C-alpha cells in the first residue's frame, strides 16, 4: 500500500514538474492565444472560433516558421463568463510569449478582459464582438474584423422597408449584449424611418417560444427581425411558421450557419421567406471561403459555425502583423507593442475581404451582405443568394 502510494505521489510530482517545465518556452517561441467558450452551452460557437484560428495557424503559419520561430496556439476557455475571461486575460498577459490574441465570442467577456489586454499592450483581434463599446473606448490593442451593430442594423432595416415593402416589424432578441445591441439599433432606425415596431421582446428561452408566437400571430407583422444566434432563431422560425406565421423572417450574422436550415427546414422558404444580414458573404461569394469550409470540414469533421471564418481571418491578421513586426525587429521576437502597432498598420487580404483597421480598431469600411435563404436543409445551404452587398463606413467613436 505504502509503496504504491509513494509511486503515485512520485508520478504526481513528475507530472506537475512536467507542467511546470512546459511553462517557460523556448526563446524563439511565439504564442497566439484564443479566448472563447470551449465548455458549456455556448461552446458550439466558441470551439469553432478556436478551430478557425487553429486552422489558420496551420495554413498561414509558414512564413513565421521559415523565419525560425515556433508558433503555438494557446487556447483558453472563458466559459462565457467575465470572471473566467478576466482571469485568463491576466494569465495570457503574464505569458510573455503570447504576442497576439483572437477572441472573444461574448462582448460581455471581451469588454472587461480587454482592459487587461489594454494595460499590457497585447493586441487582440475579435472575430465576433459587434458591440460598439468594444472599440469606442479607443484602445490601441482592441481590433475587430466584423461590422458593428450600429451599422448592421440600419442596413437590415432599410432592406426591410425598401425591398420587402414592410410597414410593420416585430423585433425579438436573445437578451445577450450582441443580440440586444443589434435589435436596439434596428429599432432606432425603424422609429426614425416610420417602420412600425409592433413589439420589442427579449427572450432567453431556447426551446419553447409559444408565449412569444401567440401575440405575434395576433399582431401579424410584415417582418419578424430576430437578433441572435441561429440555434435559437432556427427553432423560433420553425415554431412560428408551424403556428401559421406567413411573413418574412430577418436575422443577423448570427444566422450564418448551415444548421439554421437543418433546424428550421422549409420554414425558411415558406411564406415570406427569410433573409439575413452578414458581414461575411456565403462561400460562393469568396473562393477562399469555399476552400476554408472544405478544409475545415476535412480537419474537424463538421461545417464551420458562424464567426469561425472570422476567427480564421483574425488569426491571419495576427500572424501577418507578427511577421511584419519581426522583420522590422530584424528577425528577433518582436515586442507586443510592435505587434499592436503592426496590426493597425496592416492591410491584409483576408478570406472575408480586405482588412485594415482605423484608429479605434474598426474596419474603416465594412462589407455588409444581405442574403436570402433558399436552403431547406444543411446540405443546400450553398444555394442561398446574395441580394444586396453594401459598403458602410465605421461610425467611429460616436458622438
Amino acid at each position: 500500500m505504502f509503496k504504491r502510494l509513494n509511486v503515485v505521489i512520485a508520478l504526481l510530482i513528475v507530472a506537475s514538474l512536467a507542467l511546470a517545465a512546459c511553462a517557460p518556452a523556448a526563446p524563439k517561441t511565439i504564442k497566439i492565444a484564443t479566448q472563447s467558450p470551449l465548455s458549456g452551452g455556448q461552446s458550439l460557437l466558441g470551439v469553432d472560433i478556436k478551430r478557425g484560428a487553429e486552422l489558420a495557424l496551420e495554413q498561414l503559419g509558414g512564413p513565421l516558421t521559415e523565419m525560425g520561430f515556433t508558433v503555438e496556439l494557446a487556447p483558453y476557455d472563458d466559459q462565457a463568463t467575465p470572471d473566467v475571461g478576466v482571469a485568463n486575460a491576466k494569465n495570457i498577459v503574464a505569458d510573455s510569449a503570447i504576442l497576439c490574441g483572437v477572441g472573444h465570442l461574448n462582448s460581455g467577456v471581451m469588454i472587461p478582459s480587454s482592459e487587461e489586454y489594454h494595460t499590457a499592450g497585447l493586441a487582440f483581434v475579435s472575430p465576433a464582438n459587434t458591440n460598439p463599446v468594444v472599440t469606442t473606448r479607443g484602445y490601441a490593442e482592441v481590433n475587430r474584423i466584423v461590422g458593428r451593430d450600429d451599422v448592421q442594423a440600419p442596413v437590415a432595416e432599410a432592406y426591410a422597408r425598401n425591398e420587402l415593402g414592410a410597414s410593420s416589424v416585430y423585433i425579438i432578441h436573445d437578451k445577450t449584449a450582441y443580440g440586444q445591441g443589434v435589435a436596439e439599433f434596428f429599432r432606432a432606425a425603424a422609429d426614425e424611418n416610420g417602420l412600425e415596431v409592433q413589439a420589442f421582446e427579449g427572450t432567453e428561452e431556447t426551446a419553447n417560444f409559444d408565449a412569444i408566437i401567440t401575440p405575434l400571430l395576433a399582431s401579424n407583422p410584415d417582418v419578424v427581425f430576430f437578433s441572435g444566434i441561429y440555434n435559437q432563431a432556427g427553432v423560433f422560425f420553425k415554431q412560428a411558421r408551424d403556428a401559421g406565421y406567413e411573413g418574412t423572417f430577418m436575422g443577423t450574422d448570427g444566422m450564418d450557419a448551415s444548421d439554421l436550415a437543418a433546424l428550421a427546414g422549409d420554414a425558411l422558404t415558406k411564406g415570406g421567406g427569410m433573409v439575413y444580414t452578414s458581414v461575411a458573404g456565403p462561400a460562393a461569394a469568396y473562393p477562399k471561403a469555399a476552400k476554408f469550409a472544405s478544409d475545415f470540414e476535412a480537419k474537424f469533421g463538421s461545417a464551420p459555425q458562424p464567426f469561425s471564418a472570422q476567427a480564421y481571418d483574425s488569426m491571419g491578421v495576427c500572424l501577418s502583423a507578427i511577421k511584419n513586426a519581426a522583420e522590422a525587429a530584424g528577425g528577433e521576437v518582436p515586442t507586443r507593442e510592435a505587434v499592436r502597432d503592426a496590426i493597425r498598420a496592416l492591410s491584409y487580404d483576408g478570406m472575408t475581404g480586405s482588412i485594415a483597421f482605423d484608429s479605434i480598431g474598426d474596419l474603416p469600411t465594412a462589407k455588409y451582405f444581405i442574403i436570402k435563404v433558399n436552403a431547406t436543409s444543411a446540405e443546400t445551404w450553398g444555394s442561398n443568394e446574395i441580394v444586396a452587398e453594401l459598403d458602410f463606413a465605421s461610425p467611429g467613436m460616436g458622438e
Partner: protein
Amino acid sequence: MKNFFDNFYARINNGKNPYYVTFGLLILGAVLVYISPRSLLAFMILMLCPMAIYFLNMETKIKVLIGILLAVVIIPVLGIRNIFYLEVIFQISVFAALALGLNIVVGMAGLLDLGYVAFYAVGAYLWAIFGSKQLSLLYSVPGAAAASAEFSLDPRWFWLFLFLGLALAALTGILLGLPVLRLRGDYLAIVTLGFGEVIRVLALNLDKPINLTNGPQGITPIQRPPLPPSYIMDVFRNILEPIVGHEVTDAQFYNVFFYFIALIVIMVAIVVARRLEDSRIGRAWTAIREDETAAIAMGIPLVQMKLYAFAAGASFAGIMGVIYGANRTFVSPESFSFLQSIGVLTMVILGGLGSIPGVIIGAAVVVFLNIQVLQTFSLFLSSLRQSDAVIPIINFAWRDLSNQLDPAKYQKLVFGLILVIMMIYRPAGLIPAERRQRELTHEEDE
C-alpha cells in the same frame, strides 16, 4: 491511506520541524515562483505555505510574522511579476468571502440558499450604477451610450459605497427573508433560487422603461478608487522595479491595490464570522439548524435569528460585490447566474459545511481548479498536440489525439467528477467543522 497521512502529519508536526517546513516552503516557493513565474508547480508550493501556517503547531507570533511576510511582501512582489497570481488570489478572496457569508446561512443556520449571488449582484450593481456614467444615461437606449456622458460621482465615493453595498445587501436579505423564512428547508431553497433568478432577470431587463442596468450590455466603465498619491507610488515603483525586472504600471499597481482591499475584507470577514459563530447569536443559529422546535422552546426567536443570518450572510456578498464591480470596471448579468450560486454552495460544502477554515479552503480549491489547474492542464495537452511528442510504449502520437477529446472542452466534466468523488469519499468536506473546546478545568477540581 489515512494512516499514512496521519503519520506524515505527525512527523512534520514534531518539535522544530514545523518551522523548517514552513520556512522551507516559503523560501522555496518564493524562489521558484520568482525564477519561473508561470509555473503552476512553483505557485502550488508557495500556496502550501499558508496551509502549513494553518495546520502546523508553531508559536502564534511566528505564524503571524510569516503570514504578514507572505501576504504583504512576497505575494505582491511575485504578483507584479505575474499579475495572474494576484488575480487568482483576488478571486479566491472574493469567493472565500462569499463562501463565508453563505456558510453563515447554510452552514451555521442550516437555511439552504440557492440564490446567494443575488446579494453579490446587489452590491456590484449598486456601485456600478453610481460609480459609472449610468445615472446620466437613464433615458438613453442601452448600447448607444454617449461617450461624452459624465461620471456622476467622484471615485473616492467607492469607500463609502463599500458600506452602502454591505447595508443594501443586508437589507435585501431581510426583505427577502421576512416573508419566506417561515418556510421549511426545501421550500426555502426553491424560493431563494427563484429570488436569485429574479435579481438576475431584473438586471437583464431593467434597461426599460428606464435604463437602470443597461440590460445585457452591462455597465462599463465603472470607476476605481484612486491609487495613493503619485509620490508614494513612485517610492514603491523605485523599490519594485529592480526586483521584478520590468516597469511597473499603474494598472499593475491596481492589481496589488485590489489584492490588498480583498485581503483586508477577507480578514475582517473571517474575524466577523468567527466572532458571530462563537457567541449567543452563533449558538442560536446552530441550535436552529439542529432542531427548530427545541430551539424555539429555549426562547430563541426563530424568524429574528434567521433574518440575522440572512442579513449577515448577504452583507458579506454585498461588500464583495462593490469591490468586484470596481475591480472589473464592468458588470453584466452573466456574472450572477444560478450556476454561480451553485458554485459558491459547492465551495462551502466541499470545504466543510459550517467550518470557517474549511469554506476558505473550499473557495481556494474551486477557484484554483477552475481558473488555473484545469486551464493549465489543457494548455499543456494542447501544446503536446502541437508538438511531436509520442507516448512511448503504445507509440501514440499526441498529434493524433482526437480534437474532440481536448480537455479544455470538458472542464465541467472534470469538475463534476471531482464533486462526486469528494462527496463519496469525504462528505464532511476538506476540513470538517469542529466545535470549540472550552477550558473546563474548574469542573475537574470540584
